[in-house]
């Protein structure tokens, strides 16, 4: 399940920043392009795509560092398996 979530998140990030090479384990904050506009887009994308609401206490840097960690967040928040 989170394979699918992870792939969708990666596709979204690559769509926004086609010039960067990125894989699921890569720390996107180290790439230096994350600003608050992108952070907002990312959260909206995750909420819309996976039908979840991210509560404040989950809005932590570590949960958004990599496509893997975002997929794990989606897994925790989804009532039913996401992306099946």
């Amino acid at each position: 399940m989170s394979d699918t979530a992870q792939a969708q998140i990666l596709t979204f990030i690559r769509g926004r920043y086609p010039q960067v090479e990125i894989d699921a384990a890569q720390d996107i904050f180290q790439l230096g392009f994350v600003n608050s506009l992108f952070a907002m887009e990312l959260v909206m994308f995750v909420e819309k795509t996976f039908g979840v609401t991210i509560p404040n206490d989950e809005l932590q840097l570590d949960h958004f560092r990599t496509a893997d960690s975002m997929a794990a967040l989606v897994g925790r928040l989804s009532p039913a398996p996401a992306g099946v």
Partner: protein
Amino acid sequence: MTVAAPVLLAPPGDQVRDRAAARAFVDTHITPHANGFERAGAVPEDLLDRIGAAGLWAPFLPVEDGGAGIDMVTLGELHEEVGRGCSSVRSLLTVHTMVSWTVRRWGTAAQRERWAGVLARGEALGAFCLSEPEAGSDAAGISTRAVPAGGGWVLDGVKKWITGGQRADVFLVFAKTDASIGAFLVPRDTPGVEVRPIPEILGTRASMLAEVSFRGVRLDGDALVGPSGFTAGMVLTGTLDLGRYSVACGSVGIIQACLDACADYTSRRRVGGELLRTMPLIQAKVSDMVTDVRAARMLCAEAGRLKDAGEASTLMATWVAKYFASTAAARHASEAVQIHGANGCGDDYPVARLYRDAKVMEIIEGSNEVQRMTIAGEAYREMTR
């Protein structure tokens, strides 16, 4: 009379939930008095109460928070109609909307319990405090600071150009924290808060602007709204996005008001024995107003639809809508004054006010220049996709 505006069939009720009701409300309680509000430099209390009774302060809040759960497209239509009547009133709605949305989107259960209902009913009015004497476009350059102290915070700094600041009951204040920029809810009566009216301003002259100082203001831990880490910037991004949407819709209202005023004036005013409306140069100006008001309205509706769908692309759609609508409003308000001649410079018609207000729309919620930089940045990013 409204020209080129959507045709409405629904009868107005007490509660303002749709464009038809908003139009009736505005035509009764706002438009006829808007020049007077400007002269007085204030929106009267009885109108603020009426807006509350009509449920117009924050109708997008869910029913459980005291709102009516209306969608963003409809909210935009309400703000357009209010903006058609008076941009000062619409500005008060805009900042109140920004505060109410922030409480709803990012507030804890306790914060919502405390604020959502009173904001929905307009028993507490909200104001949005980001700009400072030395920082406007560059939000990262603010110097107001919130320092953790004893489980809470101490807030120090000065905010300027605060719409509704003279009247607001609660300020949503953006301040630097160690981690990022945080958003804090500060009741007006907190010790250390001082409000100084700014009486002289080019446009939105009834919007009760103020400079608000925070000196050693002690806040509880739960004054912080939303996360305090890297994602705190998102509170600001989301809040500004909604403010920008409201200003875009309000700008559509300004264009509509220019069009209505000009259609009416040119149908009565004769020059050299001929009605102005028969003259090709006048018709050219009016046709451009008709075209732009429809285009701007569609851009706003598109941004609203994307908000309702939860699409991230609403952020850019809102930038584009605001850029188009605000620049068109400034252009057409200038032409509206021109069409009215000397009458356009006086107080017997609305167009001098519309002209002053329209200029402000090009500066607030992302100035023209900042909008163009953002829109161009996105265009280049898309090109490389």
